[in-house]
Structures are given as C-alpha cells and as structure tokens.
C-alpha cells in the first residue's frame, strides 16, 4: 500500500515538475531554426513572436563619454521578476575569444563588454550607464527575464559617426519572446515539441525513483546495525 502511494505521489510530482520546468518555453510551432551560439548572445529566430521595447540613449554615443541607456516597454517590466544581462562589444564575431573592445558598465566591475542590469524602480525599466572605449560599431545581445517571458533583444550601436546635436537617441526595437531553447546547430531540424516535456517528465521520474532506491541503502544498513546490536545483546 505504501509503495503504491509512493508511486502515485512520484507520478503526480513528475507531472507537476514538467510544466514548471517548461514555464518559459512556449514551444512555438513552425519556428525557423535559431542561429548563432554563446550563452550571452541573443539571436532571435525568424518568425518568433515579438514585443516592442523602447530603447533610449541619453545622447549620441561617442568614444570615452558615458552614456545612459534605458530600455522600457509600454506597460513596464514585471515589478517582481525582471532581470537583464548581455554583451555589447565590437567586431570579433560571435562568441570567439578573439581580441575585441567592449563597453564598460558604470558602477560595476564586470568583464569588458558584459552587462548586468537589475530592474529600476519605480519606472520598471532597465537603465544603466556605459562607456564606449573606441569609435567603432558595437553589436550586442540582451536577454531579459520579464516574469514568465524570456526576451531576446539585438542591438547595434554605431559610434563611428560624429555626433550631431546633443539630444537623446531613441528607437523602437523588436524583442523576441522566446523559451529557453537556444540556437540550433546550423542545418539541424528543430526537435519535436513533445520531446522536451517528455524529457523533463522522465528525468523527474528517474530522480524520484533513484532517490527512493538510494535512501533505502542507509535505511537498510542502519537496520542491519540495530539487528547486529540486538544479536550481540542476546548473545551476552
């Protein structure tokens, strides 16, 4: 009876765990393959649903001059559960560890080119200052956690133009709404939509079953000790 109850509990738990693990993964059908690679780069797939974000630079970018960037949405990012990170750097193609210049984020001691931005209250936007070390083209990708959404935003900032005027530079950009699925290897097919939920379900079942079996070992070995002690007492 206890074993049957344990099996039922394991099944229920596994069913609960699978959709939780997939909370960010819409498993959109008919999506073109991802491209690119690297954990910090964000390469949204063609045809992914998008959300418009408003990007503002406090002034035209130029080398060596701190500039403030603000990224916001019309209804604000999730007040509790929002976070942004990414890279913004020059030339050197995606993810290769070749020489490059990267922006330096004010107030943080991050690796060159890296960005980490918590949500700014009360406007519920992402706001940070950075400095471009050289006059060059800077490419970057941002990943934004917005509650249950996971957004991918690509940026290209041209710092080679001589700034005209001093006003803010603004643009509305599409940020892809995505699951955790990362770029596909070039040429490969997107796996079937049922694969990931099944994988998490099997994993959860396996962990629960193996965990139960594993717990049995010290239980059995400690019972053996108690039996051993009892026998020794009896023999005395």
């Amino acid at each position, binding site marked *: 009876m206890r074993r049957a109850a344990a099996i039922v509990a394991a099944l229920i738990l596994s069913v609960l765990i699978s959709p939780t693990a997939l909370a*960010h993964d819409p498993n959109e059908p008919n999506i073109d393959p*991802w491209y690119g690679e690297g*954990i910090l780069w964000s390469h949204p797939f063609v045809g992914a649903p998008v959300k418009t974000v408003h990007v503002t630079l406090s002034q035209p970018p130029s080398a060596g001059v701190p500039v403030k960037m603000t990224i916001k949405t019309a209804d604000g990012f999730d007040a509790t*559960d929002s*976070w942004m990170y990414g890279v913004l750097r020059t030339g050197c193609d995606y993810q290769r560890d070749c020489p490059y210049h990267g922006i330096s984020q004010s107030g943080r001691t991050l*690796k060159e080119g890296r960005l980490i931005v918590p949500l700014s209250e009360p406007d519920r936007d992402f706001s940070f200052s950075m400095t471009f070390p050289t006059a060059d083209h800077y490419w970057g990708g941002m990943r934004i956690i917005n509650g249950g959404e996971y957004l991918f935003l690509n940026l290209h900032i041209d710092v080679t133009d001589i700034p005209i005027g001093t006003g803010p530079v603004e643009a509305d950009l599409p940020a892809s709404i995505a699951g955790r699925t990362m*770029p596909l290897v070039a040429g490969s097919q997107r*796996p079937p939509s049922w694969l990931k939920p099944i994988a998490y379900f099997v994993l959860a079942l*396996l962990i629960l079953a193996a965990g139960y079996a594993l717990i049995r070992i010290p239980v*059995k070995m400690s019972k053996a000790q108690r039996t051993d002690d009892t026998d020794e007492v009896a023999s005395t």
Partner: protein
Amino acid sequence: MSATLVETAPASEIEAEEDRRSQLPRVIARPSVIGVAIVASFTQGLGVYWDIAHHIDIGRDTFFTTPHMFILTGMALFGLAIVFGLGHNHELEKHGYTLRPALIAAGLGVVVQFVSLAFIDNWWHAAYGIDTTLWSPPHLLAIFGGTIAQFGLIAGASAELRSRAMTRAGYVLLTLLVSGLCLSVMIVLAEYEFGIPQFRLVYQPIVLTGIAVALLALSKRILDYRFAATAVAGIFTLLRVLTWGELGAMGRTVPAVPLIIITALAIDLSSNLSESRPPWLAPVLGVIAGAITLASQMIIFPIEAKLWFLGWAGWTWPVVVSAAIPALVISALTFTGGWWLGGRVEASRPLPYQAKTEAKPRLATGS
C-alpha cells in the same frame, strides 16, 4: 540498544568485539579510494564552474575544452576509486561483511553522470543548440548522477569508519567527502550565481535555501560532531573562493559565492543545545535555517558585487518577499529530510554478508 549492550556485556567482550571490527580489511577508508574520491569531487567541482565561465565568455567551441577535461578527469577518478573500493570489498566479504550496496550505488551514479554528459548531453546540444540552460534534462541528470555517486560513497565510508573506533582522521576524511557533495549539489544554482539566469528570479532563493539547509542538516547528522555543519560550510566556502580566484586569475566571469556558513553555525549551535532532539525540532530548525540563509544572501551578494568581477547584484526585496514563504516551507521539509537521512547514514554499518559457500557472518550471530 547500544546502551543496553554497554550495560550488560562484560567490558572484555566489548573490547574483543572492537578488536575484531578494527581488524576487518579496509575498503573505502584507504587513500586509493576515499582520497582519490575527494580529489575527484573537488576536480569536478572546479571543472564545472570553469566550464560555465568558459561557456559565458567564449562559448562551447568544442567538446574537448580544458574545463570539460577537468570534469571528465574527475569523473574517471571517482569511477576508479569505486572500482578500487569494490576490489577491497571482496576482501571484506570474506570476513562476513559487505559495503556492496553503497559502492554499487556510487558506481551507478558515475555511470549515469558519464552517459548523460558524454552522450545524452551532446545529443541534446545537437537538438537544441550549443548553449542550453544548466537546467536542461541532461545537465540535471548529470548533477543527479554525481549526487548519487557521492552520497553512495559517503554512506559506505561512514558505515565503514564507524564500524571501528572513529578516529580524528576518519572525521576529517568524511567531512571532506561531505563537502564535495555540497560543492556538487550547489552547482544547480550556478546560472543565477554567474548572473545569467534563464528561469524566474524567485526560484533562486527557494532552491538555494531548500538545498543549503538540507545539505547542512545532512552534514550535521552524518558527521555528528559539535561544529560539523560549520566545518562543511567552511570547506565549501573555501573551495568556492578558490574557484573564484582561479577564474579571476584567468580573466573569466566569476560566480557569486552563497553565504551558508552562518546558517551552518546556527544549525550546529541550536542542535547542540538539545541532546534529545525531539521530532518537532527538525522542521523548526529548518524554518530558522531557511530564514537565516535568506537574510545572509541579502547581506553578502551586494557586498560581493561591489568587491569582485561579479555578475550577480543581489536579491531585490520584491523577489525575496515573493520567495520567502515557499522558501521557508521547503526549508522545513528539506531540513527534516536531510536530518532524517543523515541520521540513517550515521547509524549505518557494513551489512552482514554470507557467501554462497561460506558459513554465517562472524559478528552477527543470527536470530
């Protein structure tokens, strides 16, 4: 029942019994097994953090990266330690005892880890892309395999070391082994600690408190000495700081180090207060330990973010407030689980073993 034995058995018989146990062949308590296993688990831990930093800064350019080699070397060493252990266990079985279940579990854990990382993970990357999340099924399976391997070896080592008079060296080795387990399990939080979360932020406080208090409760009960949890938390912290130093020296992104030593100290001090350890104590301690863990991170993460090349900025109040109740409930549950399981491990001894062609075990007279 041990107390009854002490009261009823003549001192000479107890001494003779202890003598017999101390003369049993060593299985895990050998440098070639426990020593290699400790080195292996630390090597793997270092390799995994290095690997994640490599993925963040460079990418997964090839399977044969240096950090991957560290992970595989650690795994191979751990497997080798278990093979040695199984060999020595054969000698123990000739004396009527065995540690086979613990060693087999540990071996299966290494196999699960190896199959997951070497085959399933590569297939998953081919299907879903070069860099998926740390919480992908193959990654979680590998972490779980490592947990099985280390837990199996800890159960076996504890049983063996306690079957004879526990020495100071025995405590040290077991403490190091348990610290290796903590290092391995806490890897599940690495994405958050590197500042590249891919799941909701509220999961971090919940998972961190749940895992940390479970591991510390488990450590306290398995080791069962005055500052056992503090010792494990101290070694864990030292290893994580060394990892930070290594990654920092290479110019890599470094992860935040969670502050669990205050929680550990609180667990040690509070559980030392009561010898009787009533059943309600574990969930109560779990809630207290969970609250201390939450508060500790609120203090340490912002400090770390100011001092180091660090991704994580610290938890915001809305995140902590949203996570607090589930985190404390889960802490009560996981602490109780860890407390109970650690007690079982501490009470474990080698199992009586009867070979098909041999007589009954010498020490268990049978009922």
